[in-house]
């Protein structure tokens, strides 16, 4: 029903995977994604199913095998790296290299696509950095070194860096991987707030399926044979979540709208 120009991300017949000299390893094919602005998307799937590959392809870190990706109606192939950096920011799982960066400096780096050749911060830059600290409630940390932070604090600061980059889309690769349940909920709730209050389009890959079921607007489910993208309610209605884990140990409980142990009831 929605018009074409409302899709912040759109793919047509997208195939993702890896090419080596000898063969092509297709991980998923014929993906036709249409995503509206201001949604929190949780990307769910088993380990090794290709979640990171999908995110890497959407962010132009690796090329698509075939098909097209449109960011804000612009073909990803025609976007130069600086323009892409102005519409899409990342939060990665990888460890940061050792450095002396303070939290403020780290977040300020998010302004790189906008600063001049030597990286001077303008008043506008300072304002965006300030807003990013406010939105993530991390202002008290600005003078700390990033390596002094707890995992939960660091995750919020990394999100603040992405916010300072002032992009419509923020993509996070397993931001909750190292967090306890309290910080996991806090992080996901923060992302939900950013989507709802500030119309950010947020795509998160996560293993927190039960939390994702409660918080996400849209779920992207990856199974070995299928890719399903829809609102949580529709996916539950159509019994799609049952396909997520082909395991005897865990099953989807439709009334609770949660995954439970198979022998728990």
């Amino acid at each position: 029903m929605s018009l074409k120009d409302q899709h912040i991300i759109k793919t047509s017949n997208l195939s993702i995977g890896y090419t080596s000299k000898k063969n092509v390893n297709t991980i998923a094919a014929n993906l036709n994604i249409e995503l509206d602005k201001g949604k929190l998307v949780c990307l769910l799937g088993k380990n090794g199913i290709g979640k990171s590959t999908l995110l890497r392809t959407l962010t132009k870190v690796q090329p698509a095998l075939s098909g097209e990706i449109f960011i804000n109606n612009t073909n990803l192939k025609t976007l130069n790296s600086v323009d892409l950096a102005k519409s899409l920011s990342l939060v990665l799982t990888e460890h940061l290299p050792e450095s002396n960066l303070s939290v403020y400096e780290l977040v300020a780096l998010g302004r790189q696509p906008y600063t001049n050749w030597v990286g001077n911060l303008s008043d506008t830059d300072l304002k965006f950095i300030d807003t990013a600290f406010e939105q993530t409630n991390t202002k008290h940390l600005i003078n700390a070194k990033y390596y002094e932070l707890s995992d939960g604090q660091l995750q919020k600061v990394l999100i603040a860096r992405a916010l300072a980059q002032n992009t419509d889309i923020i993509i996070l690769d397993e931001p909750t991987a190292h967090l306890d349940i309290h910080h996991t909920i806090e992080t996901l709730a923060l992302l939900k707030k950013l989507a709802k209050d500030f119309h950010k389009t947020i795509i998160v890959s996560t293993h927190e399926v039960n939390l994702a079921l409660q918080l996400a607007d849209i779920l992207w489910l990856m199974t070995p044979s299928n890719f399903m993208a829809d609102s949580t309610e529709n996916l539950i209605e159509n019994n799609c979540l049952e396909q997520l884990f082909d395991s005897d140990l865990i099953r989807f409980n439709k009334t609770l709208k949660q995954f439970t142990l198979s022998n728990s009831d």
Partner: protein
Amino acid sequence: MVNSTKSYRNTFIILLGALLLIFIVNISLGSVYIPLKQLFLAFIDGEVEKESWKSIALNYRLPKAITAIIVGSGLSISGLLMQTLFRNPLAGPYVLGISSGASLGVAILILGASFFGATTAGFAFSSWGHAIAASLGAFLVLSAVMLAAIKVRNTMSILIIGLMFGSLTASVISVLAYFSSANQLQQYLFWSFGSLGNLSWNEILVLLIIFLIGMTCVIFIIKPLNSLLLGENYAKSMGVNVKRTRNLTLISTSLLTGVITAFSGPIAFIGLAVPHLTKLLFSTSNHKILVPAVAISGAIIMLICDSIAQLPTSEYTLPINAITSLFGAPIIIWLLVRKRKITY
């Protein structure tokens, strides 16, 4: 970072003051005692009591001090760039075998001159010849280490690979040495001891020109180097052209290390130790602050090392490499011992 230049201004003023002071101390030291006032008169072309004093001041001490400044700054900046590019706090021109690469270039030029015949002989002894050969050698080894670093991310492995490149070039040099004449060998050996004092004004001009070219490249990579502090993937996601940054870094470090090694011989540890000391002093990773700070600190420390080399008897000059190693090696040990705190 908000008011970065302001809050660091005082430290910069102190550093520049220290540089001026040690510069004066450095030129007042030497085997012949010359009163400060006479030195000053010599520099402004005034009446000096002894003609020999003027000659010593203008043709020996001043060129040596200027060489020390360029060598110290250039090697330290090279070290800073490598530490950020390799994401490795223990990277530096000497440790990664870059100085050895430059040595190989010079060795092939001096020792291999007999292979290439008489036509290259003139070129081999010219200062430009040395500079070009050393820069090429440095670039070759640096590219090889970089290629290895793309495959191997482990800090220690990269250092060991750099060490291996050092051994490789050393063995090639010994093969070359075996086949060369006593005269060529002597020339190479003297070069390899490292010295700041043998440069003519013409050679200093060559050194200065290439130093300035290298430093100009550095100014253009200050911003992308800052984003590389978060790793290559973050840098790319912020619109940084990582490949271009890496190439510019490789070019400027090989130019700086190459030409400095060509004229002053392989000088150990300055490139590794100075960036760490500067980071301790300034407590930042922002290259906009670090590049000038490291350049000034490098000059200061090189002048100090050179002054110490002059001190003991005032009759002989100690080899500069002995002093820089005495100062640099303990710093590496100290860095490794308190490893948790290593930052770059």
